[in-house]
């Protein structure tokens, strides 16, 4: 664990937590503009959250504490993962050797809680969504580990603090090709993990086609607000991870580095919007193919590093 934490790192984390609801908004806005519509305002996410927080909750008689704990665990686990990212390019608030595994573990914990809370309702729709979510995750998680393995090999640091922090700047000129491959794989992972097109369509509300949306059908009021905030935060977290890999921030000043991350996250959201307006959703059986393709890219990156 860390001896002392730089408070500026915590400010960066707070900033990411604050801008998270706007990030899906940027993606949606980009998609709307590119397809010739005006679209919802970028800040619509905040309004939705404010509205939901004021509402009451409704719990089904058959659901248990697992259902109520789900949304809280989702957000808590994502915040935990976010604390491990060195957003200011120097040090993460929480770091130790091997925290790459803890990062993936925190993400898995959040997914596990969400899936359980979906299953707890006993609804067959939510069970189906949970099954799809876990199917996709079982392909996505090994790819995440492959990406981390490549980053660890490229930088020689077993902690995200080093692997996507100060050391990444030195690794770029040396291993450009591998890091580009890892960045591509991470972008595909971002689309898959956050249920964006081409894996899932966040705009659809038809139960049969949804993956992520269908799990949270029974959540209401503040619970739903937490779930929505959690999914926005997850998108922001993956975008921030991608930005941390692509933009070496060690040379930037302590204040400009988090701002650069925020700007980078916004750019990633625009990219997501561009992908969404250019592609159709893949058939569910084709999704693993896409994710394994990303895995092949990451694996190739590792092979290049081992050479």
């Amino acid at each position, binding site marked *: 664990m860390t001896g002392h934490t730089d408070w500026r790192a915590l400010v960066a984390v707070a900033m990411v937590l604050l801008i998270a609801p706007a990030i899906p908004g940027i993606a949606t806005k980009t998609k709307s503009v590119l397809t010739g519509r005006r679209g919802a305002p970028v800040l619509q996410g905040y309004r939705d959250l404010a509205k939901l927080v004021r509402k009451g909750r409704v719990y089904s008689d058959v659901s248990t504490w697992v259902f109520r704990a789900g949304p809280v665990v989702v957000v808590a686990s994502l915040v935990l993962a976010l604390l491990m990212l060195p957003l200011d390019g120097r040090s993460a608030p929480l770091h130790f050797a091997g925290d790459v595994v803890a990062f993936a573990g925190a993400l898995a914990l959040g997914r596990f809680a969400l899936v359980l809370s979906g299953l707890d309702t006993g609804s067959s729709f939510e069970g189906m969504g949970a099954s799809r979510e876990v199917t996709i995750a079982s392909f996505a998680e090994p790819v995440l580990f492959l990406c981390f393995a490549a980053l660890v090999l490229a930088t020689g640091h077993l902690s995200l603090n080093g692997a996507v922090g100060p050391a990444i700047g030195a690794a770029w000129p040396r291993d*450009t*090709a591998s890091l580009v491959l890892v960045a591509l794989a991470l972008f595909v992972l971002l689309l898959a993990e956050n249920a964006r097109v081409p894996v899932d369509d966040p705009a659809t509300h038809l139960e049969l086609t949804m993956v992520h949306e269908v799990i949270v059908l029974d959540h209401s009021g503040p619970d739903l607000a937490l779930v929505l905030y959690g999914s926005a935060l997850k998108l922001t977290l993956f975008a921030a991870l991608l930005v941390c890999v692509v933009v070496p921030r060690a040379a930037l000043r302590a204040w400009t580095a988090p701002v650069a991350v925020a700007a980078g996250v916004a750019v990633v959201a625009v990219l997501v919007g561009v992908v969404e307006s250019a592609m159709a959703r893949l058939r569910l059986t084709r999704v693993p193919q896409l994710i*394994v393709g990303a895995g*092949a890219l990451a694996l190739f990156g590792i*092979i290049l590093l081992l*050479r």
Partner: protein
Amino acid sequence: MQTTAELLLLLVVLTDLAVLGSSRLRTCIRAVAAQGLLLGLLPVALASRYTVHVVALSAGTVVVKAVVLPLFLLWAIREAAVRREVEPLVGYIASLLLGAAAVAAGFAIATRLPVPDVAEPVLVPVALATVMIGLIVLTTRRKALTQVVGYLMLENGIYLFGLTQTESVPFLLEVGVLLDIFAGVFIMGIVVFHINREFDSLDSSHLTELRD
């Protein structure tokens, strides 16, 4: 720092993987065309000085591998009205993993081969990987057209291997090889056309049932 040639070679591997992972015939052919273009640029990127030999080899490769053959294959798809799906015998995921294994094997084997003075260390592993992935495509895809694609990739790998010796291989030999492929693919195209007319499909497994 990575050289242009090295980046081109890495892109060649990416096109290999694209052929393995895509389910559309057209995408496969476009990927092979892109690979042809990359292969055409390679002699220029590898050469220390631009001789007529190098430039002509490069231009010839681009014309044959990136323009003529892909256009011919696309024409064959249109004429034979083939279904656009690839229909692999081994699934896409399995073939992608096989492809990744082939790339790993290529890099593992290449260091142990006694190849004399190669200008670019990635050249031999990428050549081996492309040959192996070409073989995978050739053997695991059912359609005659994808088998042509696999054959082209196999040949691309051999061409890459030949690039290690550009300085010593005479120009005529390489032109001869290019002509060979050109003729080979043309004949394959005509065969494909006839398979299609005979059986109303391009499934090459029908050929095992031929009798007189």
